[in-house]
Every structure is written in C-alpha cells, then in structure tokens.
C-alpha cells in the first residue's frame, strides 16, 4: 500500500493531476452549477463538458507537440498552421463563390484531405530543416510561425471568410452520442498517436533520439526519419485542430485563429511532465495539461473580469507546477530524505 502511494506520488502525472483536481475543486466552490450536467435536446450540457470541448484544439496540438518535445525540439509553427488549415479548408469550400455558400465547391472529403495534406507537408518541411539541415527546432519552426499566417491571409485575401456549408459545421459543432463531436475527434487522435507510439517501437525510438541522437544512430535508428515523422505528425495535428477551430466559428480568421496556441500546447506538454530537454514523454500528461489550462481560464471567467486577466492566474499555476517539477526541488527533497536516512543511521554503500 505504502509502495503504491509512493509509486503514485512519484509518477510524473501526479503533480499535474493534483493541479487539475485543485482547480476543479476550487471551481466547485466558486460557482454552484459547476458539476451539474443537464440534458437538452438529447445533448449533454454543463461546464465540465464545456471545458473538455474547448480544450480540444490545444489538446490535439499538444499531442503532436509532446512527440516533438520528446525529441528535444519545439514546434512553434503549429498555431500558425492551425490558422492555415482553417483558411485553406474554408476557401476550398467556397471555391470562387463570392457570397456565403451553403454547398461545397469541391467534394467535402477532398477538402479535408487537401487541408490535412498541406499542414502535414508543412510539418514535414519543419522536420526536413531540423533533421537534414541540422537547424535548431525553435528557429526552423519560427519560419512557419511567421510566414504561416501570412500564407493563410494570402489564401483568404485577408478577409474573414465565412461559410454556411452544413457538413463542415459538424466537425466543430456537431453532436454524437450526447457529446460534442470534437471530443471524439480528440479521443481518436490520441488513441491513434498512443497506439502508434506505444504499440510499435516508434515511441522507444523517439525517446532514444530525444535522449541521445548520436547513440540512437549508432544503434541503427534512422534519427532523421524519426524527426521528420514527428514533425509531420505535429503538422497533421495542427491541421485537425485547425479544422475543428474554424468549423466551430464557421469562419477563417487568419489573424487570430489559434493565436498563441503553440505556447499553450508547449505549456500543456511541460505541465504534463515531459521535459523540454527531450526524452521520456507522457501523452496522458499532456492531455491533463491542456485540461488544466482550459479549466483555469474557465474559472477566471466566473469572476467578472476581462478574460485576459486569466493569464495572471495561469502564470501563477504554471510557476507552481514547474517549480514542483524543477531539479532544484527534487534535489531539495533528496537532501531532506538523505538527511533523514543519515540521522537514522542509513545504509552506507
């Protein structure tokens, strides 16, 4: 029992899970109806569902980001690629139509395929710069972070393109089995990525490359291929998130769609226990991280203040979680444990 508790508390997910729990409990006291879930027209409504639903884009970005960070990199471009995906999909649906349309210019599956293919290719390009040209990830992805929104605006002609094409709205606003569709999409993405990383050797290779790329190469792992796959996955995730985001508002907003989402995704990953130095990664942790971020924002909304004030609280929570995970505190804990052992005549090797 004792061992189980120790194993639980030493787990990387523990501090993140605790943080999420504290925020949720805090919310329960803050507003009465927080836990209540009602059924309206056969759909579940409630704040918990809302948090889950709204955190989906960041959660999906964080899924890709987790793999990227595990290789010791960072993908700054995913927020911009999210905007690009929205812009691209809606302009494909609109085609040459100048008015808000209710039909799609090209078959809908094609819209989705093209959009996802484009963002995946952008991701592959990032991976190429990192893996083949040996450019630092932050720098390599900075290019698309800057240019991505420019290209998105180029596609939309710098207008906020809207559409009324009904099938498109299903992605971000539809319902399935009483729950919002985005939740299912997020679950599917997670499941696929989890399966791909943990039920094949891919996860092991990613971690090996993240810890020591040179040794991984000597062991016969094609490091640059691993990196290119990882960045492509991140691009693909950005595409999926972009479709959900744009479908949620039925509008391509190249300027503001997913603004700073890359930072939230990185944050979610780090909160979830994956180190920015690379190595071990925790997909589940990243999901919890994304939930923490959204739950926090949500609880700030309960106060009557500007939504941006939430950032202050976010800053404090992040500081606390990051400090708990920091080597400084780990050393401190070790020292305390060590002292105790020494006082108790602890064993000497």
């Amino acid at each position: 029992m004792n061992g189980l508790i120790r194993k639980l508390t030493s787990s990387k997910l523990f501090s993140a899970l605790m943080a999420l729990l504290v925020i949720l409990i805090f919310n329960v006291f803050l507003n009465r109806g927080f836990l209540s879930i009602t059924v309206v027209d056969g759909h579940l409504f409630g704040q918990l569902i809302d948090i889950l639903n709204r955190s989906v884009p960041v959660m999906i970005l964080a899924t890709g980001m987790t793999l990227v960070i595990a290789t010791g990199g960072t993908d700054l471009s995913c927020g911009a690629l999210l905007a690009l995906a929205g812009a691209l999909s809606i302009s494909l649906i609109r085609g040459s139509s100048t008015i808000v349309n209710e039909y799609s210019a090209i078959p809908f599956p094609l819209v989705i395929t093209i959009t996802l293919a484009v963002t995946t290719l952008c991701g592959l390009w990032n991976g190429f710069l990192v893996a083949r040209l040996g450019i630092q990830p932050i720098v390599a992805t900075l290019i698309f972070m800057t240019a991505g929104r420019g290209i998105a605006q180029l596609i939309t002609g710098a207008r906020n393109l809207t559409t009324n094409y009904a099938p498109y709205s299903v992605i971000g606003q539809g319902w399935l089995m009483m729950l919002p569709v985005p939740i299912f999409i997020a679950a599917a993405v997670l499941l696929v990525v989890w399966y791909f990383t943990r039920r094949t050797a891919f996860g092991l290779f990613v971690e090996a490359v993240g810890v020591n790329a040179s040794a991984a190469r000597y062991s016969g792992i094609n490091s640059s291929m691993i990196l290119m796959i990882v960045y492509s996955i991140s691009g693909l995730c950005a595409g999926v998130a972009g479709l959900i985001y744009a479908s949620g508002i039925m509008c391509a907003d190249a300027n503001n769609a997913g603004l700073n989402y890359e930072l939230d995704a990185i944050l979610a990953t780090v909160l979830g226990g994956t180190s920015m130095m690379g190595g071990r990664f925790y997909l589940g942790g990243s999901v919890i991280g994304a939930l923490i971020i959204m739950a926090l924002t949500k609880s700030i909304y309960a106060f009557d203040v500007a939504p941006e004030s939430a950032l202050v609280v976010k800053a404090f929570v992040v500081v606390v979680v990051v400090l708990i995970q920091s080597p400084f505190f780990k050393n401190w804990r070790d020292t305390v444990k060590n002292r105790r052992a020494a006082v108790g005549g602890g064993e000497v090797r």
Partner: protein
Amino acid sequence: MTEPNGIPRDEIILEAKGIEKIFPGVHALNKVDFTLKRGEIHSLMGENGAGKSTLIKCLTGVYGTDGGVIKFNGREIHPESPLHAMSIGISSVYQEVNLCPNISVAENIFAGRQPMKGPFVDWKTLEERAGKALERFDVNVDVRRSLDSYPIAIQQMVAIARALDISAQVLILDEPTSSLDKQEVAKLFDIVRKLRGEGMGIIFITHFLDQVYQISDRITVLRNGELVGTYKTGELPKIGLVTKMVGKDFDDLANVSRVRNESPHDVMIALEEVSAYQSVENVSLELRRGEVLGFAGLLGSGRTEVANLMFGIEHNNSGVIKLKGSAVRLASPKDAILRRIAFCPEDRKRDGVIGELSVRENIILAFQARLGIFRFKSLRQQYELADKYIKLLGIATPDADKKVSDLSGGNQQKVILARWLATEPEVMLLDEPTRGIDVGAKAEIMKLTLDLCRDGMAIAFISSELDEIVRISNRVVVMRDRAKIGEIDEDEGLDQENILKAIAGGMAV
C-alpha cells in the same frame, strides 16, 4: 631540507583531514586524509567511483564537505566555488577541456578576471599577458583567434595557462591526458615537471598506469570512498598498485589469452584498397570468422575510422568493401546491422548509452531497430531478452528497469555489449571497449570477447592498451597516419615490442 634552487621540499601546502561527503544513498568520502607537498607530483588513484573526483570537487569548492578540515599553507580554508578556490591558490584543469570554444584564447585564459582600464576591459594588456602566459609553455599561437580553431592539445595548454595565471600554488589535473596523443602527453609532462621545479604542488589523476609511474612522486589510493594509503612511487610496484585499487590480489588478465586458431576460417569482411575522404587511405584487410583482429596505432591513426567504414558511419569513395565475398555498400549503421555487424563505439557516453532510458530499453534498442518500427517486441519479450543478457554478462543492476546512467562505467559497457549481442551479430567491432572502466570489468569484457570468438564470431578489437591487444588478438593490424602500415600474425612474433617497432618503423626520424 632545501633544494639547490631554494625551494623548500617536504613543506605541506595542502592538507585535507577526515573529509566526509555524503550523497543520496552513497557515502562518497569516508574520513579521507590527503596531503600535498610543495614541488611534488602526487597521483590520485582509484577505480571509477572510488571518490577521486569527489575529493577533488571538495578541494576546489564545487561541493561543500560534510565533515573534515582542509588546510592550505597551514590555514584552514572553506572553498565555496572554483573561483574562490582559485583565489586561494588551488586551480584545476578537468578531463574535457572546460573552456568556451567560441571566445578567443586570450579571453579563455582571463575570463572573469580580465585586466581592466577603468570600467572597461583592457584588450591590449589582456592579449599581451595571454601571449606571455602561453610562451611559458613554448606555445605560440594567435591569442585573438577563437579557442575552437586550435587542436585539443593546445586547448589543454590554454586550460593550464588559465589555471596558473593567478599565482596558483596547487594545480589539479583531472584526466588531462585522455584525449592527447603520445607527443602531446610528453609535452604536457615537460610542462608539469617544469611547474614542479618551480615549487608547485600538482595533483594528477589518470587511468593510465604507465603515466603514473612516469611522472608522479607519490601515489594516494582511494577505494569505495575510503583511503587505502599514500605511497612513494618507487616503493609501490604496478601490480601492488592495481591490487590496492581493486582491493584483492588480482591478476585476472593473466588468465586471458588468445584463442588458438587452427584451421583457416571464412573471410567475413574484406576491405580492398579502401579510401575515404579525410579518413583513411588505401586500406586492405580481412576479418575472419572465429578470430580476434587487433587494431593497434596511436589515437588518430585511422583505427576508429576503419571501424566506422565497416559499420556504415563513414563511406568510402574508392575501393571495395566485401561482406562474405560480395561487394556491399553500407549506407548507414542500420544497413550494417541488417547484415549482422555490430559496433561498440569508442565514446560510450556520446555514442553508446542512452542514459535516461532503462537497461531493458538500451538492450533491445538495436535489435528493435533491426526489426523496424512495426514489428514491435512485446514488453514480456523485451524483459525476457533483457534478463537473459543481464544474467549472461553479469550486469550488476537491481532490475531491468534501472536507468542505465545509474550504472557504473563497466556495467554500462556491458549493457552496450548486450545490445549488440541481442542482434545476434556475426561480426563484432569493439572500439576501446575497456576504456574508462575498472580493472575487474576489463578482464570480464576481454574474457567475453574470447568466448564470442570461440563461438565463431569475427571480432575487431581496437585498443590503446597494447597489452590487451597482444593478449587476445590472433592478428594485429598496425595503423599509422590514416593508413595500414603492417600486419602481424600470432605465429610471427606478436608482442608489444614488435607492434611498437612497426609503429615506429615507418616513422621519419
């Protein structure tokens, strides 16, 4: 007693008494005493984990002590940081050159204590003084160029120049020779002797026993964080030193001898006049099943490069590499692994272990890489495989889930061997497999090599230790200046002397 040049001998500069240091779970230093006299070179010996580095770090203020007294010139001191220790008069130079490659040589010598003119750095004085500091060692370089434009030996000199710049009385050299070639070591020793002549106390740490006997006046041996004793070099024979380091009468290496090769075996890998750009020139050799082929030569002679070629890390631009008689092109390590070639790289830390991952993951890595991403071994199969090799090689780890970086150097090396054995190779390339591990583990690894050879594997054994090569090789390829200059068979007088002759033979006098 006073030497002719007026420097008092036998005067103690640095004295450490009852030093204690405790780390989580480890009593790293247990009441260790150590004295250093003026004008002596004092070697600090011990296996990995004996506490040498910890002691040095306590003396230079990297760590605080958990007990004991440090006296410098009779006064008690409490060094708080390397900088503080330096200001007291204790300077240190570490194994890897710990300088900044991007700034100039002059700045590296004076970083943090640049001569100032008012609030600003006085560049002119700085460069003049740097030039002078290096002239002392007969090193003549442009001090304004960045450090990384010079070879490692010069960088080492710069590090020593930095350590000596402020009137240091104690100089600590922690494994300074591990990346130097013979001439560079000789040069370094000249400087060290010169400094001894000037009355400096020098603490010298190395893995090379020969060097200890070449240069030191006294030897202090540590074992498991405890002091074994301090001896005059002349009164402690080599075998005695090793015995004291290991803690038992030990000459395991004596039992290690080559496997006799009776019948001719099939050729596994053949290089035919292989050259690679900036790597090796015109090398031809054959590696046969059931033999150990030794590679002798100085650092940089091309021995590692040959192994790299056979493992697809470097690529030849002329000549042919043949595997079992047919020409192959090894584009990457993965290609080599698919053809059942295995390679333990020279730099274990950089190219070998994946520190954050577990022993199990490290062991299955190459095997899994051969299978590819989708033919994933289940956890159960992984544990079976890992446990099998942990047992087979006697890897000292509580379980297969231990982080590999928590193991000792020798055990890490065994994990790498296990990684390769798991791929069931036919050819094993071992580049310095015994470097930086303790004597007991060395013998184990060499025995294992011979076992593999007996089982019919073809083994290339690269080592700087001629003694080891001579003991286990059936044939030795001698390399110099990126080319093969000779080959000695076990029937043609394979001993250290002949190898040295071969290496020296081609040299211009």
